[in-house]
Every structure is written in structure tokens, then in C-alpha cells.
């Protein structure tokens, strides 16, 4: 048996086989790059000497466009940033605008936002697990994950009519309230979901191929991960308990019991484990929120900034004028100032920085997207490793190019 382990499949053995340099172009159209990411990789044998990411193929100029739209009109752009977890982006954007305008949200809205934020986290991590496993070679997990994802997307569809680009939140509230039956069906899902997580784990957690392809791959230490600006589960995999939800700046994360999941070694396997634990935490947060959710209004009492209710618009002249001005010109009494507000989306820290000059449009809107930073750190993760591990590394940092290129 020992003889076999010294064969050419051995990692050290492979790295000793050297050849003249080879430059390989991966992407922009490649199934394992999760979008239009292009990598130019310099190889020595099978070892990556240099990796250069090229991004921008999906650049739509959202930041520039936003300078010419009012605050309400920017909301649908945020769906198209990270289209896998559009709801989190909606929440991130609305939270930032509300903080700038100084709007206090009703409690029920905070609860619903927390619920849909965590649902979005589960949806995102399910897609991540499915595609990551598929890249590494585990086909079955892909099908199982999409089964559960479908159920959550159906719930989203019942809530707001869309499955992918939701635009459900509004500045100062939500589009519509949730009903009892919806909450009940979601509760049923959370009853069943922990068992499903165990199913995924039995498929891959102790799978020898999975372990070989993830353990000790793409190792990054805590200090280095912070220095590279990594955030979210990618940073927590290195053992840094940095989670913006613990800042209590948004949502009702202070009213429910949950904990920040961290890894230890900072490799692909630990980042996978962190996300698997986040499934359980998100599931538990949703359950607690459904138990505690109070009755009440869903729109904040800030008529200068929030849209009036539809029935009032159709029956009352003042509300109609108000609605017209807000939709066509944007809020006319926006405070002047600059503010950076970050929220924890499934991929990491999504920050919105606004410069407001008091008009209905932002003077400058900056989107700090986690994927952009993670792609930039990809060379650090994969240089010196084998070309096959590049795919594990791309999967483990969980990128979406719509958000990266903006």
C-alpha cells in the first residue's frame, strides 16, 4: 500500500515534475468560474506560478447610473448585483438609505426583514454548496440542494411575485405584509430543513474525495485574511469572528439566540464548514423570529421619504401628489451628508456609501461588494497550488460576478 502513495498521484511528486512554463487562459466562459470571470494562469507543470484575474465583463455602470436615478429607482439595480441573494442586497440598500435619512423602522418590519434576510442566506448557501460540490465532482448534492432551494424560492414568489429579482423591500418598510399561512409554511420548512442539512453532510462530509480536495487547500491565516479585506464566511473560515450582524445595527439579531460560526485552519474545508453551520444558525433565527413576530404596521412613519399606501393613493389627492413627487423626483428633503453603512450579506460585507447633496438623487453611490475583494484575493489563495485546486478555491470564496463587476 505504501508503494501506491508514492506514485505520481502524490502531491509532492507532482510538484517536483517541472516543465517549461505554460500560460493557460480560463474563462470568461467556463462552467467552473461561476460567471464571466477570466483567469490567466501561468503554470509550471501542474503548479500555479502566477494567477491574474480579469474582471469587468459584466460591468453595467451601476454606480454611475445611480447618480442619475432617485433613491427609489436604484432599488431594482441592487437585485442585479448579487442575483443569487437579491433579498439581502435589497435589505442592505434600504438599510443604508434609511440610516442616512434617519428613518426608524417598525418592529414588525425588522422581524420580516430578518426572516427574509436569513432565508436569502440559506438560498445563497444552497446554491453555493450545490455548485461548489458539482465543481469538485459530487453530482448528487447539486440535485438535493436545488430541491430545498426551490421550496424557498416558491415562498419568495408567494411573498412578492418574483423568484430571483425580488425588489421586495421599500425605503422605510416593505412592499406588502406577510400572512399567517406564509409564516406557517415557512415554519414547516424550518422543521424539515435541519434533517436535510444532515443529508448533505452524510453525502460529502466524510467523503474521502471531498476531504482530499478541500482539506489544506487555499490556506490563509487570520491576519492575512483581514489584510486582504476578506469578509463573511470566507474570513470566518480563518477563525475571525467578524460578523456585522453582531453590531446590532440592523434587524432583530439582538433579540434572538444565535452564534457566529468560525473555522480554525482557514482552508477550503473550514470555509465549507462555516457555511454549513450558518445553515443551522439561519434556520434557528428564522424559527425564533416567527415565534416572536409582533403585529403592527410595516411602513415607517416618515411621510417625507416613504411611499404612501396604494389604497390612499387611489382615493386621496394629497397622497397621490405625494406619491407622484416621490416616484418622479425622489425625496425632496434628504439630509446633506455622507454615510457608509455595511450589512452582512451571505457573501460577506456589502457596504453602501452615499454622498447626499440634499436632492432626490445620490451625488455619489459607492457599492463595496464582497465578491470584488474576494476575486482580488484569489491569486493569494491559489498561487503555489495545483491547477485542479484552483476550482476548489474559486468555489470556496463564493463569488458572483454581477456583484463583482457592478
Amino acid at each position, binding site marked *: 500500500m505504501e508503494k501506491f502513495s508514492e506514485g505520481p498521484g502524490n502531491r509532492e511528486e507532482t510538484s517536483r515534475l517541472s516543465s517549461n512554463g505554460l500560460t493557460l487562459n480560463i474563462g470568461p466562459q467556463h462552467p467552473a468560474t461561476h460567471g464571466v470571470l477570466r483567469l490567466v494562469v501561468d503554470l509550471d507543470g501542474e503548479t500555479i506560478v502566477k494567477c491574474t484575474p480579469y474582471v*469587468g465583463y459584466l460591468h453595467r455602470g451601476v454606480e454611475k447610473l445611480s447618480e442619475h436615478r432617485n433613491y427609489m429607482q436604484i432599488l431594482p439595480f441592487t437585485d442585479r448585483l448579487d442575483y443569487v441573494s437579491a433579498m439581502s442586497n435589497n435589505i442592505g440598500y434600504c438599510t443604508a438609505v434609511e440610516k442616512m435619512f434617519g428613518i426608524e423602522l417598525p418592529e414588525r418590519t425588522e422581524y420580516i426583514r430578518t426572516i427574509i434576510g436569513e432565508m436569502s442566506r440559506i438560498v445563497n448557501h444552497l446554491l453555493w454548496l450545490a455548485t461548489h460540490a458539482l465543481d469538485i465532482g459530487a453530482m448528487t448534492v447539486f440535485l438535493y440542494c436545488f430541491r430545498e432551494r426551490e421550496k424557498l424560492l416558491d415562498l419568495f414568489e408567494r411573498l412578492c411575485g418574483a423568484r430571483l429579482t425580488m425588489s421586495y423591500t421599500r425605503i422605510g418598510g416593505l412592499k406588502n405584509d406577510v400572512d399567517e399561512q406564509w409564516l406557517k409554511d415557512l415554519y414547516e420548512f424550518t422543521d424539515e430543513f435541519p434533517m436535510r442539512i444532515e443529508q448533505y453532510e452524510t453525502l460529502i462530509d466524510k467523503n474521502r474525495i471531498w476531504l482530499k480536495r478541500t482539506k489544506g487547500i487555499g490556506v490563509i491565516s487570520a491576519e*492575512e485574511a483581514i*489584510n486582504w479585506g476578506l469578509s463573511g464566511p470566507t474570513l470566518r473560515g480563518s477563525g*475571525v469572528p467578524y460578523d456585522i450582524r453582531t453590531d446590532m445595527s440592523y434587524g432583530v439579531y439582538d433579540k434572538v439566540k444565535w452564534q457566529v460560526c468560525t473555522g480554525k485552519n482557514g482552508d477550503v474545508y473550514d470555509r465549507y464548514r462555516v457555511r454549513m453551520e450558518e445553515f443551522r444558525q439561519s434556520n434557528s433565527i428564522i424559527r425564533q423570529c416567527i415565534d416572536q413576530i409582533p403585529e403592527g404596521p410595516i411602513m415607517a412613519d416618515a411621510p417625507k421619504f416613504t411611499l404612501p399606501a396604494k389604497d390612499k393613493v387611489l382615493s386621496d389627492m394629497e397622497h397621490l401628489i405625494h406619491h407622484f413627487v416621490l416616484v418622479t423626483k425622489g425625496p425632496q428633503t434628504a439630509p446633506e451628508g455622507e454615510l*457608509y453603512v455595511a450589512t452582512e450579506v451571505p457573501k460577506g460585507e456589502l457596504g453602501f456609501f452615499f454622498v447626499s447633496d440634499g436632492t432626490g438623487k445620490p451625488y*455619489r453611490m459607492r457599492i463595496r461588494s464582497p465578491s*470584488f475583494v474576494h476575486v482580488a484575493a484569489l491569486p493569494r489563495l491559489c498561487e503555489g497550488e495545483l491547477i485542479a485546486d484552483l476550482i476548489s478555491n474559486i468555489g470556496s470564496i463564493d463569488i458572483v460576478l454581477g456583484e463583482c463587476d457592478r
Partner: protein
Amino acid sequence: MEPLEIVERLKEKYFSEIVDVTQFREQVFVSVKSDRITDICRYLHDEPDIHMDFLADICGVDYPGRKYRFEVLYNLYSIKFRHRLIVKALLTEEDPNINSVVPIWNGANCHEREACDMYGIIFHGHPDLRRILMPEDWEGFPQRKDYPLKGREDWEYKGFEECKELHNHDKEWNIQAS
């Protein structure tokens, strides 16, 4: 530490560099001259009780008509102490040059490239300063306020070199675009 305390510490050390301190909804912004930005960033990063180890973001802002047309914002956060400070470096239109902070935070790499791409700010000492989001042969800096939203009417994007060759090929063979 409160952000204003950090500003006080910064004033002790770099008094002549600080131009202005503003505050909005408890977030503190320090405007500084651009010449010694790496020293200031290095100080904020290395000082044990400030310890700004996480560079959340670098972005440019354009204010045409002001004396300092460009601002480069360094969004600094300390994961250990959980405080945030935003440092603004002021740049004039004639001289949009500033030193890179990549030696301090590796994460600055992509943000500086983007600021260069969108605003034409040159970061000296950056290891690989190229356009990042726009095509490499793009002309102009799209996020400047004087750059029109729909592009310039008198100016046509020439396209990549390889597209140009294809275009010539079409002409030679008299192929009409459908």
C-alpha cells in the same frame, strides 16, 4: 475607542496634515492632505490601540469646481476594537497623484485600480495599476461628473484591436451587418 478620540491622536501626530473633520450620524470623516497619506495610514494601522487592520473600501468622489476636485476615501475599520474612521485625501484636478497603500493593506489593490479606472487618480507604488472594470483601451474616466451618462456623441468607441481586424475583414469581403 471613539472615532473622535482617534482624530485627536491623529492631530497630535500629524496636525499640519489635517484639513477638516466632519461628522454625520456618528460617523467621522477626516480630510487630510494627500502628501503623507501612507504615513497616516501606516500610523492608523500600526498603532496598537487604534489598530485599523481592515480596509473596507477605497473610493473616489468627484467635485468639479472645488479647489480640491477629487477625494479619495479610505474606509478603515478595526475588527478588534470595532471602530470605524473614514480618511479623505484631497487631490487637485491638475495633480491627481497619491501614494498607494497596497504595502499596508493588500486588499487596497483592487480598490485603487478601480479608482484609477473610474477617476484617473494615479496611485504611485501600486504593483499593477491597470484598468479593471472598463476595457483596457477605453478613453476617459467614466465616473467623473463631466463624463456624460450615455457617452460622448462625437466620440465612438473604437473597440478592441481584434474586433477592428474583424471589421476590416468584413469590409474586404463586402459583408453587410444584418
